[in-house]
């Protein structure tokens, strides 16, 4: 630890704590998950950066969406994301969640993931190298320092719109809203 960061640690110990222990949900969507085993095991050893996969979303605060997202998976992603405790950060990994990638004209995959849940960072490529994950993690540290990683705050603020998009796609959802949705407020 260098001397400059000592002040940060004294000022905001909680923020520094969760910044250096980004625990990721071990949730696999699509083909991008093939890059995760080398990242978390000894070859690239993600624990140097404090990233480890955990079993349940309730212990995690980093959500990597790895690869294409089908409609059924999106349902599970929304439920997982809503279960995570705040602060929570999402990183879309690979080109498919960004704009559909090679599935741009598929009838059953999501084209833009940020229409349904908020995204803090994007990793482009098909497939991205494991090093790209570490670049993303260090960028995410910088964003947390500056207070720019505001995905969960935006989700709370614009929940009405996100929920509306989700309901439009699925034709109604089975679970109740996470935050109160007041329809009259908008008018």
């Amino acid at each position, binding site marked *: 630890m260098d001397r400059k960061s000592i002040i940060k640690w004294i000022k905001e110990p909680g923020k520094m704590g969760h910044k250096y222990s980004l625990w990721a949900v071990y949730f696999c969507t699509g083909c991008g998950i093939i890059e995760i085993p080398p990242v978390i095991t000894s070859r690239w050893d993600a624990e140097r950066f404090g990233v480890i996969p955990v079993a349940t979303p309730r212990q995690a605060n980093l959500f990597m969406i790895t690869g294409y997202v089908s*409609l059924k998976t999106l349902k599970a992603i929304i439920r997982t994301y809503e279960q995570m405790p705040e602060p929570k950060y999402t990183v879309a990994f690979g080109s498919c969640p960004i704009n559909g990638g090679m599935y741009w*004209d598929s009838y059953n995959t*999501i084209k833009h993931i*940020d229409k349904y849940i908020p995204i803090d960072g994007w990793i482009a490529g098909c497939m991205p190298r494991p090093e790209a994950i570490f670049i993303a993690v260090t960028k995410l540290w910088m964003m947390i320092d500056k207070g720019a990683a505001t995905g969960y705050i935006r989700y709370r603020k614009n929940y009405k719109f996100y929920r509306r998009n989700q309901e*439009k796609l699925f034709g109604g959802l089975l679970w109740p809203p996470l935050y109160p949705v007041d329809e009259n407020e908008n008018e």
Partner: protein
Amino acid sequence: MRMNKELKRKIEEIYKDTRVEFPERNRMVVKTKKENLLPILEFLKSEEFRQLKAISCVDWIEEGEFELIYQVASLNSPLHIMVKVRIGRENAQIETIIKIFENAQVYEREIHELFGVKFKGNPNLSPLFLENWQSIPPFRKDFDTREYVKEVFDKIPRVESENEKS
């Protein structure tokens, strides 16, 4: 090889309107009518071909027909049998085969969802993969996926831009 010839002779003798071909080594194609499907599968099962590997479907749109292919195999013989049946594309219907091969249930459910072929007698033909499907079945040749993407996914607005407007 002699056994295969004998099987061919038997099938062509018993069932009318049935042709048996050998396109390559250890492959046998049985082309038959809709009515003969259940008896032929039952006969093959009694001849030790007890394994239903898959059911697949091909959409021949120019001829206005669906081709259902039942792939049957045996653990004792290297022969791989494909029983091909053609049915009309309009209001496609066929008997279920779950009385002979029980594992056909999920294959039939999948074909019902993706092609819209109705299997009479199958107890559960509810959707398997698709969510909130509104259009015609997606694996039919006349289904336009780009049109569907424009209709469904592109019409959902971005959240951030809308917020800036208001």
